[in-house]
């Protein structure tokens, strides 16, 4: 496959196939470092705090949260949407970019997909624990029962159940199918022993047969074809949670594509935040290069700008609609008691990503790191703004109210960080962080200098 010499190499340094294997396998060998143990411990502490907060929530009731008769959802659902959004980068990278033949995806898709799965797990927690009666949460599944009661298929929350679980399942399958050849690689590097047996088991007996590869590619492509609309559908359905209502600020038709765009936006930001650290920590700088950074940052500008346009569209149409409730909802967002949340959102999501128009900035790891964190914050506030500022002042002024979180809600949020990072730390230790086989497949065309190993 011809590649124009004008294109910048994706992978720096002199690489051979063996070198790729060695480089990516390296972080999994030897004793884990202090940093890793320290990080894992911190993550576990956060997880523990989260579990305690969840315990309090279930034991004492949702009253331990800062919600009230007017504001039924607060941090919980904000965090849910935020985490689901983050969970959009991985599958977007591996599915949609696969369809668009973007080679740079190969270095980041593995870890991004892992983040997707972990983020969706964190996200999935919230709809569960925000229920007043968690022990009866199984009512949301349409299972046959003696009362002949099924479920309400009109409910976007029910759609969510299907969407999130399908998404998690398909993402897991997709991720794991991609992992099989690489687990095979790890397996073959290990000396005989229990570890090798485990990886043998996990590798599903991968041989590298051309027939398998052909099927694997075919499957991956179609899975990508399925996953692409699936990614869209998940955040679309999450947006339906709000947009199907009649609440001003929630009910607007632009929500589905705008939410999807925002999700990819925040997902990429999170991937960037983590990968910029990870590549340093486990010496993968050659594989995740400025070229990757630039490509990802371009997507950040694109999605960020779509989000920005959506904000402005909403604002303008709210005025244009001539509906007093709509108009008030947006005036209230910008100038009401939660004005600060709105302007944090606007600054972080609309203004900061525009800095990536400057080539220097979008190719700077330090700048990208900072901006990615801004985007993470901004996207959290976006959901907060949508949920809380729309609810706290809706139709009847008599019921208007204010919301602030309690430590329990904050604790649960911290706990999901704990869960996310616990899994992430385990992942980088026990699985190849970069898709070895996929990098090899683009190695010749994408490396600064490809060396064919001697005999």
């Amino acid at each position, binding site marked *: *496959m*011809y*590649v*124009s010499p*004008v*294109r910048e190499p994706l992978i720096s340094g002199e690489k051979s196939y063996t070198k790729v294997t060695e480089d990516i396998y390296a972080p999994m060998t030897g004793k884990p470092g202090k940093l890793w143990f320290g990080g894992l411990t911190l993550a576990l502490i956060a997880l523990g705090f989260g579990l305690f907060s969840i315990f309090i929530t279930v034991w004492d009731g949702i009253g331990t949260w800062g919600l009230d008769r007017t504001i039924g959802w607060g941090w919980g659902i904000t965090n849910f949407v935020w985490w689901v959004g983050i969970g959009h980068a991985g599958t977007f990278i591996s599915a949609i970019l696969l*369809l*668009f*033949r973007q080679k740079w995806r190969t270095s980041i898709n593995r870890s991004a997909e892992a983040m997707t799965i972990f983020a969706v797990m964190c996200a999935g927690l919230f709809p569960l624990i925000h229920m007043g009666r968690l022990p009866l949460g199984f009512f949301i599944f349409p299972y046959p029962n003696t009362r002949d009661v099924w479920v309400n298929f*009109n409910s976007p929350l029910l759609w969510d159940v299907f969407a999130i679980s399908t998404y998690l399942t398909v993402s897991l399958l997709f991720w794991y199918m991609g992992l099989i050849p690489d687990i095979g690689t790890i397996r073959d590097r290990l000396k005989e022993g229990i570890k090798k047996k485990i990886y043998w088991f996990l590798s599903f007996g991968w041989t590298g047969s051309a027939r398998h590869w*052909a099927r694997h*590619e*075919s499957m991956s*492509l179609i899975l990508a074809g399925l996953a*692409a*609309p699936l990614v*869209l559908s998940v955040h*679309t359905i999450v947006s*339906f949670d709000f*947009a*199907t*209502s*009649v609440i001003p600020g929630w*009910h*607007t*038709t*632009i*929500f*589905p*594509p705008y939410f999807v765009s925002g999700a990819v936006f925040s997902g990429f930001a999170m991937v960037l935040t983590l990968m910029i650290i990870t590549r340093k920590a486990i010496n993968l700088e050659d594989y995740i290069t400025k070229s990757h950074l630039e490509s990802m940052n*371009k997507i950040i500008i694109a999605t960020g*700008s*779509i989000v920005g*346009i*959506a904000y402005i*569209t*909403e604002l303008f*149409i709210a005025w*244009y*609609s*001539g*509906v007093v409730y709509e108009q008030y909802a947006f005036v209230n967002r910008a100038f009401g008691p939660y004005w600060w949340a709105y302007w944090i959102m606007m600054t972080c999501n609309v203004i900061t990503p525009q800095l990536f*128009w400057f080539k220097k900035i979008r190719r700077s790891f330090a700048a990208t790191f900072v901006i990615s964190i801004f985007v993470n914050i901004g996207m959290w506030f976006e959901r907060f703004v949508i949920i809380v500022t729309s609810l706290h002042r809706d139709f009847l002024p008599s019921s208007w109210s204010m919301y602030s979180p309690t430590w329990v809600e904050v604790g649960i949020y911290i706990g999901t960080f704990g869960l996310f990072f616990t899994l992430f730390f385990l992942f980088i230790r026990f699985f190849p962080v970069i898709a070895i086989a996929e990098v090899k497949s683009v190695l010749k065309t994408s490396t600064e200098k490809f060396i064919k190993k001697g005999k």
Partner: protein
Amino acid sequence: MYKSFEFSKKIKSFLIAMMVIGAVLAVAGVAMNLDHTHRIWANVLLNGFFFIAIAMSAGFFVIVHVLGESGWHTAVQRIPEAMSMYVPVGGVLMLLVLVGMHDIYHWSHTEHLDEILQGKAPYLNPIFFSIRTVAYIVIWSLLVIWFRKTSLKTDSNDDIRLFNKQRTIAGIFIVIFAVTSSTSAWDWIMSIDSHWFSTLFGWYMFISTFVSAVAIIIVLLFVLKRMGYMEHVNDEHLHDLGKYLFGFSIFWAYLWVSQYLLIWYSNIPEETIYYVKRIQDFEALFYGNVIINFLAPFLILMARGTKRRLNWLIAAAAIVFIGHWIDVYLAIMPGAIGHAEFGILEIGMTVLVAGIFLYVFFTNFAKAPVVPENHPFFKESFDYDNIR
């Protein structure tokens, strides 16, 4: 090496004939409808908007690939490039809409407006509307011409800076178009149902015209291939175009469902009125629209083979093109004339404008080599394949 296109007499006379027939039918149609001029103006708007939006979408097709640093598209790039040159010509037609404004836009009758329209008046008033219309046309024309010029320069100059300049233009293009594609759709189309509003509307109309543009690229490719040009375009290119048509048809359906489902679900009269009108008076078209624009391309192009075979592809493209004309028809007519009307006026007007569009296209296509050979990624276009 690549056979340059010659705008032969034969084609020219065919297109002139097409325009003449269209013009005759259109004039006849106008004559028949002098008592309800809003139908005439609605048709001017319909075809004026549809083709200028397609031309602009074709321009968008090129610049988005430039920004995405794509290589494969260079094999067909000159087709959408030439299509985009219709923007300044079509702009003239859109200016006509300003003349017939009062027959289409309820809000332009500034003397008797209800409360809501009075509220919108700072935005929806004849003067500001005209300013915006002119601005869209001028800015869009400048953009497509600027890009086209730069692109043509590469034919004689392989300076990489020209490519970088293309990227700069593309950046400016996308920023401006990101905003104006929505606002123009609100202005020209959404404001016909002057009380109604939908935040998604701009994006929905954009995707509709974008799919149409892809369809026309395929149609034109087919025509050119039939005439013996563009032989370098291989199955992989068709496959990619097919994927676009397939993918964006689904995306269009996604937006259609998003808008419909949300409005259906909340069932708030100020929003449902839009669909109620369409379902009541245009029922067959309303549901047909979804079948033609979603189900047909979806089923035809799902298999790998059909995307690679020009005959299947052209069938899908033709259906989709007609489908999206209907889509725009559905967006305009219920508000502008209130009920379904289809006759020689519609046919004539469409044939006429399509003729002009094609004439402009072929004229421009003939002006330059059929491929940008000095494009840095040009060679990539001939060494890639789609996974089976």
